[in-house]
């Protein structure tokens, strides 16, 4: 169905629409955190989302990631692009099917206002945060750390260290018997997305 912009944004506070529509947000990783962050940022009407991942969708991803059974085997960035387009045509999407590293991160994400760390592995989180703080120390980066398991919602918090923000419980590691699942991953991803909004609106309003 073709939709006009006015009706898509009719539930929004009119004052913040231009702020959101002018914003560019980067997402590194399109798994549990990344796909959920992208869904929320698309629904709120962020102007442009730049996202990257090299991985393909596996059946085990469906317990927490915003993909569907018929997309198994597909590239995550391509599948995410399809799904986001079903939500809204009022966000521009820039997918990169690539493995991120110290060299390509500054090039791919040079135009973003805010960066979202959405990797699975701790060493990738560290690599991205260090690359970001070295290259773009004046731009906020919002990372997720500690989200495996279930329950214990009150342990999940956010923390600020200069331009680095951490969302999560900062303690529950992925180990045998404690895997990441939709509710807690979704909570942390949406804390990250919520913080993106807060920082954008505070900065421009």
């Amino acid at each position, binding site marked *: 169905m073709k939709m006009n912009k006015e009706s898509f944004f009719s539930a929004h506070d009119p004052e913040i629409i231009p702020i959101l529509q002018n914003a560019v947000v980067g997402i590194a990783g399109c798994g549990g955190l990344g796909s959920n962050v992208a869904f929320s940022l698309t629904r709120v009407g962020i102007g442009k989302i730049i996202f990257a991942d090299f991985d393909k969708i596996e059946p085990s991803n469906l317990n927490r990631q915003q993909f569907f059974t018929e997309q198994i085997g597909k590239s995550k960035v391509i599948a995410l692009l399809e799904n986001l387009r079903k939500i809204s045509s009022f966000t521009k999407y820039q997918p990169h099917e690539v493995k991120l590293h110290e060299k390509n991160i500054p090039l791919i994400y040079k135009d973003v206002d805010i960066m979202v760390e959405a990797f699975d592995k701790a060493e990738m989180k560290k690599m991205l*945060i260090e690359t970001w703080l070295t290259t773009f120390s004046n731009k906020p980066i919002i990372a997720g750390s500690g989200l495996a398991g279930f329950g214990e919602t009150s342990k999940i918090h956010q923390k600020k260290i200069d331009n*680095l923000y951490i969302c999560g419980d900062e303690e529950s590691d992925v180990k045998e018997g404690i895997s990441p699942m939709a509710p807690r991953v979704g909570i942390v991803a949406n804390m990250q997305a919520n913080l993106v909004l807060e920082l954008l609106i505070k900065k421009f309003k």
Partner: protein
Amino acid sequence: MKKKITVNKQEIDWEENMTITRILEVMNYTFKMLVVKVDGKLIKKQDYDRFVVSAHADVKVIHLISGG
């Protein structure tokens, strides 16, 4: 009075030639994936043995955990 440094908002005694490695030892931090900032400056792993903090330094150690 003893000079202090702050590590993750907790005050500990400062020592002469106190490196990041020494701070992690004093704090009993055994985590592997860390991001360390001293007075706002990022200190990379290869410098943990040689970067010496000054008295009253503000040290932040962030422990990164897999899962996403």
